[in-house]
């Protein structure tokens, strides 16, 4: 067990990098910070790979994978049983996440050396990247739910900082604010969930919570609130936290806006790592959810399914390439959630769980690739919009190839990795819930369609009037592209069902042709449709858009969800809650206090006539006072 003590370094190196580059970065040449960050990240990456290697392949696991805690210390003690520990927990999903995070993060670090070159605040960018990576790593290796919450919040802040990296741009500021507040709202759910869970079970510890057949829920069954059991409340609320980070409907609205951040950031945070934190959270709590709160699991499944469909539909109509990718991310996250929602526990039953993790892994690779590719495109044409692009395949060959690979992967074309993971999800859904399966099946087609719509309109079609000829990105940017492309292609062959499973025991599974074949077909159909519509410049999409009229406009405007949120925040919270409260406070409460003073003063002026200066009035008061006292006292005595 102690053999893994070095794993503490994996998160600590980025932390140190953050502190160093953050505090001293402005004194150095920018590139120094960049290189330092990248080297640090590379070290972490290597360490993660070593960890993964020794954990997964360093011994036989007939008994299933052990949970290893190489490091743990008490950070804050609430009561004897409730305390926040900070530690490192190694189990299949966390080790997998370590690999995902460090890999993508390292690639992004590397990529950014080129992408962000010359940007003001280069050092700051690397500092924030390091901070984010540290937080994300801390999150996945959390030994208890509160540690997870801590890093959860840190992740949120680093995301805020990175989305708002171009802080002089009002839209970036607004987007970062929105992202933070929406996720913060979800985090509230998470927090309350934790509170309920800890109240019911008396522990934060994952080990105790997820231990099969544990007795800590013994007393919980009888507890309920408003007719719903305490654990369902807890798990639903915790899921809300996860839904916020993973941008599940209806908390998805921050993610598309988050594309205001630099593209590498989108790749790292808003595609590959942070947004899957919600999925990871659900996976982490899976035994609890599955056994103690089946209702919550149902909710997770449906929310995931709906989100994936909803986002895919919107993605069709968007023109900003990063937004298309953002909605695609949403859609894919929906897949993962859904998979968890339909999963059982143990062995083959836990296929959904395994598929979800698998898809998480592959998605991280190909979505990061897509984003980095998009970054490369944007870098070349200085625009985010499809209508400013076309025919780029000639100018950006490497980008083109890697992007195509990524598109194929996400469309689920075998034998690329996306095919395997998506296939497992569909199988799991089919076993569990036909409706969800149907939805996912449809979404598979939509995914292929909108991805290739993007692909064709960017790389094919005719040239636009570029200010200067687009050129391929420097090596620092293309190496990560190539690496990720390779990963996207081959990740599908990883034996996930032996490595990452719900009960940590490997199981055997096989290709389900009955599901795989139709899904491949519908994917190809989607590609074909896109090819027809967007390969060449044509008026057909325009016409279609007009025919669908309202529906198209609604979709284009993301079903007006931003407007609804705006209404709620601006109108209701600002105008109808905060403003009246501010008014109430100033005028009623403070007015009352001031009023006391004013009334006192008023009285003071009213009664000044008593002191009239007339001696005889005084005499009258004197005698009358005496008599009044005498009357009352004598009366009192008699």
């Amino acid at each position, binding site marked *: 067990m102690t053999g893994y003590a070095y794993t503490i370094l994996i998160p600590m190196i980025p932390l140190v990098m953050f502190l160093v580059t953050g505090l001293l970065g402005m004194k150095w040449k920018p590139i120094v910070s960049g290189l330092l960050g990248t080297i640090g990240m590379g070290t972490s990456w290597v360490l993660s790979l070593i960890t993964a290697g020794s954990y997964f392949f360093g011994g036989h696991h007939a008994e299933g994978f052990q949970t290893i805690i190489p490091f743990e210390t008490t950070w804050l003690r609430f009561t004897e049983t409730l305390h926040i520990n900070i530690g490192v927990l190694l189990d299949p999903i966390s080790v997998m996440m370590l690999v995902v995070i460090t890999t993508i993060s390292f690639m992004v670090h590397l990529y950014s050396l080129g992408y962000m070159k010359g940007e003001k605040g280069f050092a700051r960018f690397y500092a924030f990247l390091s901070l984010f990576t540290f937080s994300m790593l801390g999150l996945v290796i959390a030994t208890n739910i509160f540690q997870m919450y801590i890093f959860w919040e840190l992740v949120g802040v680093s995301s805020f900082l990175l989305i708002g990296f171009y802080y002089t741009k009002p839209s970036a500021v607004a987007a970062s604010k929105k992202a933070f507040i929406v996720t913060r709202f979800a985090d509230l759910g998470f927090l309350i969930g934790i509170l309920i869970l800890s109240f019911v079970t008396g522990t934060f510890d994952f080990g105790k919570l997820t231990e099969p057949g544990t007795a800590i829920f013994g007393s919980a069954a009888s507890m309920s609130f408003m007719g719903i059991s305490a654990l369902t409340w807890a798990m639903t609320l915790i899921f809300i936290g996860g839904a916020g980070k993973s941008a599940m409907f209806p908390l998805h609205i921050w993610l598309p806006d988050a594309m205001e951040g630099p593209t590498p950031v989108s790749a790292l945070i808003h595609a590959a790592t942070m947004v899957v934190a919600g999925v990871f959270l659900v996976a982490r709590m899976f035994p609890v959810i599955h056994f103690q709160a089946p209702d919550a699991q149902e909710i997770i499944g449906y929310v995931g399914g709906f989100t994936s469909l909803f986002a895919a539909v919107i993605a069709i109509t968007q023109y900003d390439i990063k937004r298309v990718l953002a909605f695609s991310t949403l859609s894919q996250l929906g897949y993962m959630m859904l998979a968890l929602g339909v999963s059982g526990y143990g062995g083959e039953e836990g296929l959904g769980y395994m598929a979800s993790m698998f898809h998480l892994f592959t998605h991280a690779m190909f979505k990061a690739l897509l984003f980095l590719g998009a970054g490369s495109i944007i870098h070349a044409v200085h625009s985010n919009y499809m209508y400013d692009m076309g025919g780029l395949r000639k100018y950006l060959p490497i980008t083109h190839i890697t992007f195509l690979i990524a598109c194929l992967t996400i469309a689920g074309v075998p034998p690329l990795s996306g095919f395997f993971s998506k296939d497992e999800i569909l199988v799991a859904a089919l076993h569990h819930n036909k409706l969800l399966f149907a939805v996912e099946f449809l979404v598979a087609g939509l995914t292929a369609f909108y991805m290739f719509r993007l692909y064709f309109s960017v790389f094919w079609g005719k040239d636009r009037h570029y200010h200067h000829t687009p050129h391929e990105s420097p090596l620092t940017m293309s190496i990560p592209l190539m690496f990720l492309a390779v990963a996207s292609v081959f990740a599908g062959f990883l034996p996930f069902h032996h490595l990452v499973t719900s009960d940590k025991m490997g199981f055997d599974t096989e290709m389900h042709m009955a599901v795989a074949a139709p899904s491949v077909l519908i994917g190809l159909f989607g590609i074909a449709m896109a090819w027809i519509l967007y390969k060449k410049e044509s008026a057909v999409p325009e016409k279609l858009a007009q025919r669908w009229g309202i529906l198209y406009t609604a979709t284009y405007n993301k079903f007006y969800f931003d407007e609804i949120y705006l209404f709620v925040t601006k109108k209701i919270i600002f105008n109808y809650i905060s403003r009246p409260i501010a008014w109430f406070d100033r005028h009623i409460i403070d007015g009352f206090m001031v009023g006391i003073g004013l009334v006192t003063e008023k009285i003071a002026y009213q009664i*000044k006539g008593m*002191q*009239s*200066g*007339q*001696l*005889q009035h005084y*005499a*009258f008061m004197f*005698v009358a006072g005496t008599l009044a006292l005498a009357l009352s006292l004598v009366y009192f005595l008699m």
Partner: protein
Amino acid sequence: MIQGIPLEHFLIVSTIMFFIGVCGFIIRRNLITMLMAIELILNSVNINFVVFNRYLYPDQLQGHFFSLFIVGIAAAEASVAIALIINIYRKLQNIDVENVNELRF
């Protein structure tokens, strides 16, 4: 002690006199008249003391002497008051109390 006259009758006379004095103090405008009202008040108090002494406690002369000293003090008071009234008269050329209201509120 006077045969046939109850103590209360004396007291009623003195009380009424007292309150006539008080009333006079309140209603008269002239400072000197107010001073006279004061004399009425003190006089009624004197009667009280003397009568109580005579009727109830004739074994000593406390009330008697008290009255005696009140008379003396009344004289002193009157002299100072009159000096002040004349002082006011020098300033205001009249001794109407309603004009003595520079200090107020």
